[in-house]
């Protein structure tokens, strides 16, 4: 039995009840006006001034469709996930994914043919998680990454050098902690959310391997997570800061000497601190370890429920593949991101010196992208376990064993589906 959402809504609308509460989704009747069909394009709210005006300018410049941009504050992932279940969602939208379930559920459209001739120009690390079953499901917009920021002057005062291993990071954080300044800020939850699976990669392991197996069923994983507990137990971590890790406030207000944050914060940090800061990847741990940091990208996707899939794909090809000047402007003029196109990275002068150049180098040398098979259920189980290890001193070995079980079950579930 399939009662579609449409039938239900039609019944409701027939009763004259829903007509008054339907919000404007940006989708019109279609076909009106000279510019062709109306497309609704959704973005999440970027913090940097000017981004909203920029994307509206790009959309207005497109002459084959009437594109209405919606700028959506709040829990964007939840909003899009809910909207994709209905017919009143967007035609094209940016997505922190798409997730494996969205792809397998047929909620997004295959975009592989748009990449003809330019596929090699996209950063392979961020293109990989948009690819499933040999098909590409979203166009990477810009590359974002997380980084460890440190204050040079505070490290010098404490006689500490930038840490080269996780053990050195633990020691440095302890040495840098004073009455009013903490050594390290990994987020108000002590690092479980912000670091996530990065420590596994720093230990030379992975979350899910390339052939779809659990990548951290290894004693080294427990050993590395135990060191994060050490940071917490030493009281070296800043906790309960008014602005969480994604915001550089704690770092520039000198509540902490080092902070895990994003590349997006680099202009703000530079403005406040000038040259008095440096960036690092999460240092390596153990003999097989290597420094690690996550790279990822919001992708532009087409909703499978759109009435104008063909036009929507054409629009995306125009904006995110053909119009390189817009892509460059979007990546570098507001906030700070690495362009997803390798040819644009080479041209970008802003990325050629100082910490920005370091960041670009790290992104190619140490960057890993969260695998598509690392599903939300796996992530929750892992993050819960990591939080218990860090905050309550739970045994990393047994916590990880139960996570491995959950992840195996999730991997089996995703393989079962077509």
């Amino acid at each position, binding site marked *: 039995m399939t009662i579609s959402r449409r039938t239900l809504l039609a019944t409701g609308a027939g*009763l004259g009840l829903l007509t008054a509460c339907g919000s404007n989704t940006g989708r019109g009747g279609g076909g009106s006006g000279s510019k062709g069909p109306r497309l609704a394009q959704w973005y999440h709210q970027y913090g940097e001034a000017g981004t909203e005006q920029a994307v509206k300018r790009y959309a207005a410049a497109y002459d084959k469709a009437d594109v209405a941009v919606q700028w959506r504050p709040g829990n964007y992932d939840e909003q899009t996930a809910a909207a994709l279940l209905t017919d009143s969602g967007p035609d094209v939208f940016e997505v922190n994914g798409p*997730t494996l*379930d969205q792809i397998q559920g047929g909620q997004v459209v295959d975009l592989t043919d748009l990449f003809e001739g330019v596929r090699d120009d996209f950063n392979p690390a961020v293109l990989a998680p948009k690819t499933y079953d040999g098909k590409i499901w979203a166009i990477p917009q810009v590359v974002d990454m997380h980084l460890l920021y440190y204050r040079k002057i505070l490290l010098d005062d404490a006689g500490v050098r930038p840490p080269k291993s996780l053990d050195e990071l633990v020691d440095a954080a302890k040495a840098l902690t004073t009455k*009013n300044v903490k050594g390290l800020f990994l987020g*108000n939850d002590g690092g479980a959310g912000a670091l996530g699976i990065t420590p596994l990669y720093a230990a030379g392991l992975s979350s899910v391997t390339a052939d779809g197996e659990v990548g951290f069923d290894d004693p080294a994983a427990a050993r590395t997570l135990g060191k994060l507990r050490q940071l917490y137990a030493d009281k070296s971590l800043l*906790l*309960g800061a008014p602005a969480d890790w994604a915001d550089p406030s704690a770092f520039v207000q000198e509540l902490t000497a080092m902070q895990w944050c994003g590349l997006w914060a680099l202009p703000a940090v530079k403005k406040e601190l000038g040259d008095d800061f440096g960036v690092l990847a999460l240092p390596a741990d153990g003999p097989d370890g290597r420094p690690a940091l996550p790279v990822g990208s919001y992708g532009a996707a087409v909703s499978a429920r759109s009435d104008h899939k063909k036009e929507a794909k054409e629009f995306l090809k125009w904006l995110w593949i053909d119009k390189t000047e817009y892509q460059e402007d979007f990546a570098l003029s507001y906030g700070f991101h690495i362009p997803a196109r390798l040819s644009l990275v080479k041209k970008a002068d802003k990325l050629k010196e100082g910490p920005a150049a370091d960041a670009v180098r790290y992104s190619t040398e140490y960057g890993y992208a969260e695998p598509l098979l690392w599903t939300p*259920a796996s*992530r929750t189980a892992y993050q819960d376990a990591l939080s218990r290890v860090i*905050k309550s001193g739970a045994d990393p070995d047994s916590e990880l064993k139960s996570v491995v079980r959950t992840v195996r079950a999730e991997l089996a579930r995703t393989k079962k589906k077509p």
Partner: protein
Amino acid sequence: MSRLLGTQNRTLWFWVFVGPFALGLVLFTYVPLAWSVYLSFFDAHNTVSPTDFVGLDNYTSMLRNDAFTDSLVTFAVFSAFIVPTTFVLSLALALMVNRMRRAQAFFRSVFFLPAACSYVVAALIWKLSIFNGVRFGLANTVLGWFGAEQVAWLSTTEPPWYWLVIVTVRLWLQAGFYMILFLAGLQRISPTLYEAAAVDGARPGWQVLRHITLPQLRATSVAVTLLLVINAFQAFDEFYNLLSDSRGYPPYARPPLVYLYYTALGQGQNLGLGSAGAVILALIIAVVTVGQARWFGLGRKED
């Protein structure tokens, strides 16, 4: 036709007044409720019209899920604590305000005002300015006067300071509202009862409270307890706003609604599993409420 409308059009007016509400209730409460029960028997990832029937699998995996059973324990502990605490505090406030000769209206309003504040706003004030973890937070400033170390209130699990934050914000928001209910109850008690007690030699204070005031407040107390328990079951806003961050929710102090929110409506979009959890939760609430009503003799004739 006139038979259909009833005498003086009563039937017509009944439906004019009741109809819109009943329709809304059916459309926005009962239909989603039934739909949710339907979904709970399917593997419904990212869809509300699933095809993959899985029987009771969602229920068994939910009941075997430690995170979910832990969240049930969390909220049982939370209710066991917050219900008596709010009850005692609001009763005490009511007794004190009731004894005031002057400015009673003023104090009544002052204590009631927080009830007008949104849970979200209050939670943010508690999180960002009173109980933040750095040296300029209000609570830490006070600790600093006594030379004590700063505490990261919401991030510390040993001891679990986060409960202090959660419980105080809820008490501040709720106590005034229940105080008003108790005040109304107190003002209904006939003064002649107290006079008679005084003549019989009852000592003012505990004895009068125990044998006159509390028995007379029985109806109010039952109502307040029921409302408090239901409120505790529905805990979501302040938990979510105090403890969640952009990457999720910590594994402690996680009420079932918050856990289900992340399962069903977060990026996970596992609507089948989430619905199964919601049905289990609804059943528990139903059993507890019915049990409680039996226990208090709700609906029985007052004697």
